[in-house]
Structures are given as C-alpha cells and as structure tokens.
C-alpha cells in the first residue's frame, strides 16, 4: 500500500501531534508513503476567496505531482481532502478548464490527466486496509469509552464531490472506526456541523458559539471525547473551547478533541506521549486515565 503523502500546513504548525501520531500509525499499518514535499498549501478555501483559479492551479499541480508518481494522495486533514477534491471535481467536469490550468504547469514539466484519487487516512483505513486488518494491529480495546464523532464540513460535503454514492461507507466512516476500536458512539447534534474555524478571525462571536454548542452537546450526550479527522476543527474545538464554553455556557472546557490517528494509536497500544496527547489545550489526562482504567 503506497501513497503520495501530503501532510498539509497545520500538521506541521499548530497540530504537530497530528503529524507525529499519523506517521507512527501509518508505519504500524505498513502504509508506505512518499511525501509530496514540493506540493503547496491547498488554500483551504480561503485563498480561493481571493482567486479561485489560483487555488485550482495549485491543487491540480499537487494532483499532477502525485500522478507523476502514479500514486493516490493520502492526506491527514479533512480540509485538504475537501479542497483538493473540489479542484479535482471541477477539472474533471470541464476539460477545457483543465487544459487552461495545465497551461500554467507546463513550465514545471507537469500535466494533469485527471486520474489521481485523494484519500484521507480515515478512508484509507476503512476502505483500503479494512476493519478486519486494522483490528489485527490492535493491542487493546477501548471498551466502555464513549466518543462523539465530529466530521466537520470538508469530509462530508458536498457529497457529490466526495463520491458518496460510489463509496457509501464514507458517510459514517468515523462511526465505523469508533466501533472497530471497541468503543461506543454517542448521538448528538454536532455530528456534521461546522466547527466555526473559517470565521474565527472574522466573526469570533459566532465561531465561539459554534464551539460551545458542539462541545457542550457532545458532553451532554455522555461522550468522553470528541474524535475528528480535521486539524482545523481540532484547533477551534480544542484551542478555543475554554473561552467558548465560559462565554456561552458558563462552564468549563471538559471534552478533549482527539485526532483520528491518536484514536487508532491508542488501540494499537502506542504510548500517549508518542501520540502527542499532552499537546492539547483541553487536557486529555482524565480521558487517558479512564481509557487505561477500562482496559
């Protein structure tokens, strides 16, 4: 199983624990990767606000780089997944546009023919590796632990772009993963809601209300932690949880936000420090001790 790995920007910046835990987990699962070190940031939808075409050129370039290696792209961030997929979708639908974009890649000797697939590590696990094989790498179960799945936006919408019809498992991939580690899923209103990150610097009041609503309702549903495939969701739900909860619910930040590779890593028996669980703003101490207790 070989992939062209694009870690994204945040995994190297604000969420180093994601990069570290992902690297260890991929090694354990024998996922071979070649890092696309010359690939650019995807633009995260923000760059596209200023110039959508520029964003598309940058992302098609990334797709072409992977195509040259004849490998599918593996990402560890939902936003990378969504943004690159949207660019891919646009050029597949409009071949004239693809031709136009390839014009900008000529100088670098690149040309995208439209064959690259993009998969989040979560999908690689569920679809390419499969739950059965995944479980073989587990050393323990997270029995009686409750997780609230927080998909965020970019890995579930638009469903047409993310090819949900042909891959129906993508719609509940987190639930499948949580089940695989032996834990329980709680039902709450934030499952596919927006974390508010995109408007954090633009309308902080609204952003914090979203953080408070979703972390609060996750806690109310009995979850011990939230698990999310997007580091940007993590940054907002984790980093701003104290301020958001204090301001809107008058209570404390009480629910840790776990990355997908951290969840997998816990079931694999990898030590918490290697998974970077001490690097979260909302402490994972209680969560970890409850997990170890229940083992």
């Amino acid at each position, binding site marked *: 199983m070989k992939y062209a790995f694009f870690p994204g920007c945040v995994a190297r910046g*604000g969420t180093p624990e994601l990069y570290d835990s992902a690297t260890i987990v991929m090694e354990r699962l024998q996922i071979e990767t070649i890092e696309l*070190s010359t690939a650019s940031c995807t633009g995260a939808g923000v760059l596209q606000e200023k110039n959508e075409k520029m964003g598309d050129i940058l992302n098609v370039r990334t797709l072409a780089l992977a195509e040259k290696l004849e490998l599918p792209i593996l990402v560890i961030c939902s936003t990378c997944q969504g943004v690159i997929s949207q660019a891919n979708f646009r050029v597949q639908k409009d071949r004239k546009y693809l031709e136009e974009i390839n014009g900008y890649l000529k100088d*670098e000797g690149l040309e995208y023919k439209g064959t690259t697939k993009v998969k989040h590590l979560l999908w690689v696990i569920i679809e390419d590796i499969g739950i059965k094989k995944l479980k073989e790498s587990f050393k323990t179960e997270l029995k009686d632990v409750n997780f609230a799945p927080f998909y965020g936006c970019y890995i579930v919408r638009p469903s047409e772009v993310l090819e949900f019809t042909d891959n129906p498992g993508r719609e509940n991939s987190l639930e499948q993963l949580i089940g695989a580690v032996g834990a329980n899923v709680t039902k709450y209103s934030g499952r596919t809601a927006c974390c508010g990150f*995109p408007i954090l610097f633009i309308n902080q009041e*609204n952003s914090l209300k*979203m953080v408070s609503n979703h972390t609060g309702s996750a806690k109310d549903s009995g979850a011990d932690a939230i698990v999310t495939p997007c580091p940007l969701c993590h940054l907002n739900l984790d980093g701003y949880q104290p301020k958001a909860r204090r301001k809107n619910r008058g209570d404390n930040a009480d629910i840790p936000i776990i990355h997908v590779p951290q969840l997998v890593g816990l079931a694999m028996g990898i030590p918490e420090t290697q998974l970077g669980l001490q690097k979260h703003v909302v402490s994972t101490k209680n969560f970890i001790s409850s997990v170890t207790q229940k083992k």
Partner: protein
Amino acid sequence: MQVSMRVKRYDPELKENKSWWQGYKLGIHANATILDALIKIREEVDGSLALRCACRASICGSCGMRVNGRARLVCKTRLEEIIQKDGELNIEPLANHSVIRDLVVSVDSFFSKIKEITPYLTPKSEPVTGEFIASNESMENLLKSMNCIMCGVCVSDCTVLEVDKKFIGPAALAKAWRFVEDPRDDEKSQRISYLNDTEGGIWDCTRCMQCVEVCPKDVAPMDRIMEMRETAIRLGHKNSPGYRHSETFYRSVKKHGRLDETLLAISSAGWTNIPRLIDLIPIGFKALIRGKLPPIIPHKAEKKEAIKNIYVKVEKEDE
C-alpha cells in the same frame, strides 16, 4: 408498502405550549414521496395536520421540511429511499424559522432578509426602444440564482443562522448575487459595498457547504457568496478581516508555498487592531506551553520557486 413515520406537531391553541411527536402508520404505493404520504394522512387519517404544499413538482417551494434532521423538499423525496437509508422517518418543520403550527413555519424572517438586499433590478436608465442588450451567456449565468424557488431549505440548515440571526443568509445572498452579476444593473459597487460592510454580510458565511448540499435546485448559495467575496476584493474592498485573512493566506503561499499560521492569525486580526491582538495572547501562550505554537519561521515547500512562478504568471494576466 406499509410506512411508519413520526411528525412533529405543535398547536399554539393548546394549553401546554409544547411540541410533541405524533406517529402515523399507513399503506401507500411503492414509488410514493413523503409529500404523498403527508397528503394521504391529511386526507384520510387526520385532517388537522397542517403543512404547506401546492405544486408537488418542486417548482413552488412550499414543502420544505426537515426529514431525519436534514431539510429537503418533501415533494421530491421518495419514502423508500429515506427508509432504506435511515431506517426511520421523522418529519419536522424547517429549522431557523419560527413555527406557526405543525409543519407550517413563518416565512416573515426569510422574506425580510430578501427585502434587505434590494431585490429588484436597479438600472440607471432604460433603453430608448426595445430591450437591454445582453449576452445569452450572461443571462444563462444568472439561472444559477433564478432557479431558486425560495423554499427556505438552505436557511433551515445554515450553521451560521443557527447561532446568529443577523446573518443575511444563503438565500438572500444568492439573490443578491443575481443583481451583482446582472449586466443590466447599475448599482454593482453599491451592492457589493453594502454586502461587504454590513453586519451579517458576505464575510459571515462559515463555508460549511450545508446550503450547497441541501439546495434542491443546485443554486449552491455558498459558491455565490464566494464569488461575491472575490468580486469585493477585486473592487478594492480591503477593510474587512475577511479580506485580510484571504490576502494574507494568498501571500503566504506565494512566498513559502505553505501557510504561515502565526502571521495569518495576527494579520487577520489587523496589525493596528490592538484589542484583537491582545485577544490572541492567551491562546498563543497556551499553544506555546503545550508545544504547539507554529514555528516563527514557517515550514516551507521545497522548490517553492515553481509555486511563485505560477503566481507571477496569473497575476500578470489579471492586470
């Protein structure tokens, strides 16, 4: 086929001012839509059930409701499809609207947002004879917004409206786009100014794509909002945090091939916006002590000149 469903009822004339779930069971033909079932209930089982519907052909926009938590037009949603996927059928009125009775909501808030964006053509003058001259391409482009049937489904599921009623909202903004893009309208820059500056305007959308996902007419309101952001920037509106955010991102990738997060946070707040900058300190500090503060010298892409060259090429064309 036999169908069981639950409908959220509410009657302000009842003493206990609460809503309740009412279950219904009925037999109906296999290809039936949810609306067919609701009409059958109304006609044969319980005439007190209140809902709006008219055309049953997805053109009038009356029958927007939430089905298993997601807003849709029930006239074009097949029972079988929902029950097979979700195993249950729960019907509630649209969210983000106040309920009048049962599945009937007030559309006053919806249309007040429409009215806010000056929803009619504002040409400076009319042609002396005949029609305005316009390309077919420009008129067909407007179909994206004209296809909107004002059903309220996007407004129901908008994640910003859920926390902030001041947001103009996807439907009204998509309609505003139609006038911004109409070559016959002469108030493009005033419209963009308003939408850029006003509270709840184009920069308040959180880009969650819910409206794109749920719109039954492929209006893709979020895409329309994004286009207006691009237009606002092109027209020189640089006074919003949204602009600064986007511009900094753009420049960072140009320079490093990757994102400089620290710079982004500071620049979006605004270099001279002292309160905002002070606001960033606690979170910055927390990140620092946890060991997750982004590096001062940001991570770069290797061979980032290739990326810079693309920028130079594109920017040259835009001039």
